[in-house]
């Protein structure tokens, strides 16, 4: 597939005519912006990008990106993206969604997608709340936080997506903050470039239903891993950094492994260079005769 040269592609080329329906200053604008920038930086062709989501405010993102989109059902962005990527590995498949979508209802798929290490990029817009359903506790809601569904404060421990991803074998694990779009765009670019599963947990404030984890709240707590001497090839160092939240939120690349082979390099069909989407459908006479003979 021929791609235009990076210099020729601008971020605006990935902006759809459909205007986002998010609340003004919702963190998700930043993520959309970063995705447009990353696709442009990589010189991708719009037609070769497929953006897949689940359901939630954040999951509406594919509708605002000028690329093929699949707006799926709640929690199923990753299996949908997996199927598309396996059928046509030439596509750049970016799965997006919320913390409820990915770390709640879709948690099973999340873990398995990471251990599978298919070449997918997964961006989770983590606002520590269920936005679309107007403010219930999410799996990343901090203990003690009062929400519509936790009127006396959340009594469960939050999920630590970074630590979980590391434990599940994700080969690229990063966190970004919507308050720094250039940094986020660079992380999304690296994530897309990484051959294997890549997670970017995007701290993306919900300005309407989360009055605790606000832009200023995050800004006081984030710091950049690359400025603090972190070695992203060191798994235990990554785990140590991952355990700092919720007090501090390191942003940047926690871990990047080049040693784990991507699923498509191991799958018996794809490793032969087969693209199912381009394969001939009907069986040759010889092949069907061989199958029939095996039944005789």
């Amino acid at each position, binding site marked *: 597939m021929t791609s235009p040269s990076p210099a020729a592609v601008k971020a605006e080329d990935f902006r759809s005519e459909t205007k986002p329906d998010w609340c003004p200053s919702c963190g998700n604008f930043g993520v959309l912006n970063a995705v447009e920038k990353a696709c442009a930086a990589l010189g991708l062709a719009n*037609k070769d990008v497929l953006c897949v989501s689940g359901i939630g405010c954040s999951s509406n993102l594919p509708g605002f990106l000028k690329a093929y989109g699949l707006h799926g*059902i709640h929690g*199923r962005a990753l299996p949908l993206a997996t199927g598309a990527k396996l*059928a046509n590995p030439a596509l750049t498949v970016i799965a997006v969604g919320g913390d409820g979508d990915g770390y709640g209802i879709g948690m099973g798929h999340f873990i*398995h997608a990471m251990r599978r290490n298919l070449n997918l990029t997964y961006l989770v817009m983590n606002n520590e709340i269920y936005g679309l359903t107007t403010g219930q506790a999410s799996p990343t809601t901090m203990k003690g936080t009062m929400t519509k569904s936790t009127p006396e404060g959340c009594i469960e421990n939050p999920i630590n997506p970074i630590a979980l991803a590391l434990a599940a074998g994700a080969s690229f694990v990063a966190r970004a903050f919507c308050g720094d779009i250039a940094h986020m765009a660079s992380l999304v670019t690296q994530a897309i470039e990484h051959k294997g599963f890549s997670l970017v947990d995007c701290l993306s404030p919900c300005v309407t239903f989360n009055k605790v984890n606000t832009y200023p709240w995050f800004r006081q707590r984030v710091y950049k891993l690359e400025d603090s001497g972190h070695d992203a090839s060191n798994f235990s160092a990554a785990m140590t950094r991952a355990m700092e939240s919720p007090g501090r939120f390191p942003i940047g690349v926690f871990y990047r492994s080049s040693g784990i082979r991507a699923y498509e390099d191991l799958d018996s069909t794809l490793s032969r260079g087969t693209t199912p989407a381009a394969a001939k459908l009907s069986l040759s006479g010889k092949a069907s005769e061989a199958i029939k003979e095996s*039944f*005789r």
Partner: protein
Amino acid sequence: MSGIAEAGTKAASFRLWIGGAAGDGIAAAGQSYIKACARSGLQVYAYNSYESVIRGGHVLFMAEAGTQKPCLQSSSCDILIALNQETIDREGPRAGKGVLFNSDRLRVDSSRLQSGARALGLPCGQLAQNPLMQNSAALGAAAFLAGLDMDVLAELLRETFKKKTTAVIEGNILAARAGHGYAVAHFGDSAVPVSGDGKRRMVLSGNEAMAFGAVAAGCKFFSAYPMTPASSIMHWLAPRAAAYSMVFKQTEDEIAAINMAIGASVAGVRAMTATSGGGFALMTEGLGLSGMIEAPLVVVEVQRGGPSTGLPTRSEQGDLFQILGASQGDYPKIILAPTGVEDAFYTMGEAFNLAERFQLPVVVLSDLILAEHRETVDDLNAALPIDRGVWAQNSGSGQDGFKRYAVTSNGVSPRAAPGQAGFIHVAASDEHDEEGRLISDVHPDPAMRKAMMDKRMRKLDSAAEALRPEVLEGPADADLTLVSWGSSCGAARHVMRCLNEGRKTRVNFLPIRNLHPFRSEEVLAILKRAKRVMAIEENYTAQLCRLIRMETGFDIVRRWLKYDGDPFDPEASVRRAEEALHD
């Protein structure tokens, strides 16, 4: 009928049962035996009744081979090969000619056998070098009793054990020849020789036919989570997928299975998943997604006994209403239920074409007996017609503005897949406009919503016409019309065959292959002409009868229902039909 052969004459059929514990190698022995029959020009129907344990449960392999294809498993046998004492005690009295057993280890009390049946002891220690080869010795003896050519069996044993050492292969063949020789010398009176027509046939199960059908239909993506009795589709496809440019993915659950298949479909390939009732329950939300975003999809549902975990290794047809009602809202879907093994193959070809022509989910509804029993098939035409439906052609001008969900007269809109230039769009599960933009919350548009519903649902009108017509089998006029679906069609065909013997026209049969959309006028016309109607199905609430009443207003009051987990008994089914003829 079968098994009654005058000395020197040929019988119409030979019924062999092999019983023992799970893990005794019965499936492999049975497979070699039926293949030998199929290669010898006989028609075969075989059913392996097993329990869901790897070792220890009782297994009974029931095969009937003859000049005419049997429609279902027999309720008794000519010869029983008993591999353990329990089989002798449980099944021995149902053998008409004799019980073959290892006389070194087991005992048969002749007084407990039918008159005319013999205890056919094989001194396996003498015949086989190794106790593991006793099945082959017994098979050799059975081959003689059925009148099969020992060389055909030897060839099959060579194939069955091809991955083993030469010593194992030759040992098994020697054991089979020794068993054969021993039978020639000692069991001549018990032989029930049948002779075939010389045609070398295929023998395959419903699941194998479906898996082969999917490959022949150009399915390039198969995702599934293991669940009996659907798993053998996976077992057949997994090692072969790469050779047919298909990706097979075992998933973390059935929700992932259906969603991966939908993702693959959106990327432009023919995609399928397969499961049983419990797994299908988890897939329901995905089925609706396929309907909403108009992503073609084939879902195979192989029913087993329910509810809940139910009867994992027993058959039932209790999921029809689950499929009919699956997923929220009104959306178009097609449900097809193949009526036999050969039909299962061709139905898969049809399912993929319908899915793509009408851009909707097609559920192919099977059941454990259809899936697992094996029967001979003369031939299959694997050059299946492939119709991929309408696709957006030529590069569109801009990047936006492609009407993926264009309102058309038949409701089908040209589709496009990622990678195609000029047709960028979002396939959205929220209600959307022609371009795929959401009209759900922020920009409600009741007129467009209605247009989209109408367009999607309209596809069913053309789909109903595109379905294969339902056809009455047997005489046009009969005293009793049977109605059935899925594997229960076997019982109906058996009843029709028995009651019409001697060119009588007492019974005809309407198999219902298309469950949704329902070809109501066609079915009603047939039912109205019928003198008496009786339905045969394997469930408690007569689900097909309920569907027929819902779709046509016709109430089938005579019902032969079964839900105890066992297949229909041939004789009891005939008796029930006799009653219906006289009620």
